[in-house]
């Protein structure tokens, strides 16, 4: 099970946070700070798995992260998920974002936070991996975006 998905930049500012287990708000912020602290210490050529981080759970939990340009994508998972599989899943997620936003960069994540959530919802649901096929995910997201746009058009008075 995936306990949390965090995206933050090189300075620790959160760009997307998604907890699949309930944490109080101040605890959430503490977890983000602690995770950033742990992950930012890492060199670029070390492995992508981190243990430790007391707040986010017991010894069964690991942090699996990937660093893309200015962003860290961190997944906190337990032993029921394959570590290499999650690493690939992060890659799939980022590629999907890339397709949906056309050469995604940090600003896209900042200004379209809700859209990123909707994309994530097609990949991971309730802390479990839902869909890993990038094309499928992108197709579904596009249908939903069109639906939302058409609804806005309908509600606006014509002319």
């Amino acid at each position, binding site marked *: 099970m995936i306990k949390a998905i965090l995206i933050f930049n090189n300075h620790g500012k959160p760009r997307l946070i998604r907890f699949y287990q309930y944490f109080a708000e101040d605890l959430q912020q503490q977890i983000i700070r602690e995770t950033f602290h742990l992950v930012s210490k890492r060199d670029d050529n070390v492995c992508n798995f981190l*243990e*430790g981080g007391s707040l986010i759970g017991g010894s069964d939990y690991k942090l699996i992260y990937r660093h893309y340009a200015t962003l860290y994508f961190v997944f906190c998972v337990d032993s029921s998920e394959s570590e290499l599989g999650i690493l690939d899943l992060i890659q799939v997620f980022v590629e999907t974002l890339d397709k949906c936003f056309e050469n995604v960069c940090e600003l896209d994540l*900042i200004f379209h936070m809700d859209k990123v959530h*909707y994309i994530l919802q097609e990949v991971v649901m309730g802390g479990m991996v*839902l869909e890993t096929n990038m094309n499928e995910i992108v197709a579904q997201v596009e249908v939903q975006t069109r639906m939302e746009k058409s609804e*806005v058009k309908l509600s606006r008075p014509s002319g």
Partner: protein
Amino acid sequence: MSPSVPLQEMIRAIRSARTQCEERGVIQRECAAIRAQFRQADNGGRSHNLAKLLYVHMLGYPAHFGQMECVRMIASPRYSEKRVGYLGAMMLLDEKQDASLLITNSIKNDLAHSNQYVQSLALCTLACMGSAEMCRDLAPEIDRLLRASNSYIKKKAALCAVHIVRKVHELGELFAPAARSLLSEKNHGVLHGAVVLIIELCERNPETLERFRKTVPDLVQIMKGLVLSGYSPEHDVAGISDPFLQVRILRLLRILGRNNEGASDAMNDLLAQVATNTDSTKTVGNAVLYETVLTVLDIKSESGLRVLAVNILGRFLLNNDRNIRYIAMTSLQKIVGTDHNAVQRHRGTIVDCLKDQDASVKRRALELSLALVSASNIRSMMKELLLFLSSCPPELRAHAASGIFNAAERRVTPRRHTNVHVHLARAGGDVRDETVPNLIQLITNASELHCYTVHKLYRALLADISQQSLVQVACWCIGEYGDLLLRGDCQETEPVQVTEDDALDALETVLQSHMSSPATRGFALTATMKLSTRITDNVDRIRSIVSIYGSCIDVELQQRAVEYNALFKKYDHMRYAMKKSTCPTLQPSPAFGGTAPGPSVNTAGGDLLDLLGGLELTPLAPADPVPVYDKGGVTLTLSCEKQSDTGLTVTLTASNATDSDISSFTLQAAVPKVGLPLPPADASLLTMVVLNNPNKVNLKMRVRVSYTRLGSAFQDTVQIDSFPGLDAAGR
């Protein structure tokens, strides 16, 4: 105008704030506006406000006032509002809040909505934060969706069912048949969801596990299709067809094959096929291979397959990619208990990983190395582990020290044990608190190593006085075995001449250093005091050191110093008794005809005057010594003083009237059935012996004298029947 423009404007405003304070101001204004908007009736921009609130929530500001708005939005007929409403519910609500109950009805309605995307929103929300009541309520609906809907909904329903089963275990029974039938689906997303559901059901209920074992042939068929099929553009990831699904199926096979011969046989061929055919040059291939290896090692596989699996892990260990090495060690850790020998073969590579720069790899290597320590490799492993300890990152130090301690305790010779402990003490504050007394206990018991230990610790003390545990043990040893230190010669280390001044300098440095804790200072002061009985020239120096601390601001030190001062002044003659009284344990000497009920003494730093409490403190008036033995130039004189009605102090003085040295001089005394004295001195010229004669029997004593002179050994026995100062009846 795109739906989220107001959101973007707010984000821009927040980002343009130059300071934290400015940002807070902007956000407070925005939140006030949002709150006002919530209170109004339906306007066109409701979804924007909630989106803004969620953004603010992400930055860490309070957003609880949006909970009711989420409930209202979810109930809206418009898709854009439902969407944001459900997202808000997942972010802001959890089952503990009352508002979450209010959305149960909306979810129920939406699950039956004609639009599949509305259905999927409801399913998603239920899977994220559905409470037990909600789950019970809606389970039949989910079951219906599992059977009769399109694949998009089916896969979401499957994961929703997993959540329901986690919350309400009994409902697993409800979903088992639907899960079984989902295995015949073609859509990979649905298959994946179905496998996840089956894994959850099997892990919860052993009976369900039994039933699902029958599906092993079907699962094998699916896997074969994935592995052997040609290139399928839809599912291909770097040459492997849907690696995620393969990994998931392998995990299910692992659960089904565990402890079951039949199931394990059925999947043997498949696993061998996957293990040999999968391309391991890309990460996805490695993920599948890794999962295969774990499955092989967990089920009752045939030995050929097991060997193949361990070899794959061995290859992983040598891979350049650190991720692969990390997971290889993780899996080796799982099998080190059962396939110990197989893992031992890779010990060299694992120990090399201790030196890796990556902290995660180091941690894995440490765990594995500690598990691999055995009687045959203890020496090299200890060397490597101690080397690791001296350079390891601080967060691993405590764990490494404890691990080494445990490993050493089980298997090591005393000398090596001492070395290990010295290293651990050097690791300093990270080691457990019991290290100091444990180490002292260990040193005491290894009597042949006293000389070696005190030299080693003295040198360690000179090098570094910052590690408190090490300093404490070193001070204790210098105090206890100072004579061995000053003697200089020691077979096991290079000889070094330590003068009394050097030893006292070391102890004084510890006393005066700002790095020493009060406990450490206590150790040093006691050690200095103990040295006063073991050295001859510098007693005055010791006296001055001790008297300085009589006015120390630390109460504990002050008390000690004052007591020691008292010893110097009033009870100077008693000081020598301290030399033997401060032994941690009193061994009963076999030369005596019985056991010694001497005063039991605790370890270093105890209150000294308590030790002497058993003795009478009336000053001794030495009586006239009576010669009892005179032969070959060696004379023995005896004097005794009555301490009390039943107590008697006998003092034997030996002197050497010859012109050559006498070495290895020992006196052994035995008395019949009376309270026995303290153990005899080694090579001292003054022996004080305290006899307790409660029954006032006729006192006799037999003394054996043995010594070496001019290379030849002498031994003689003398019986003493009459004691000066007592009458003939020995009273």
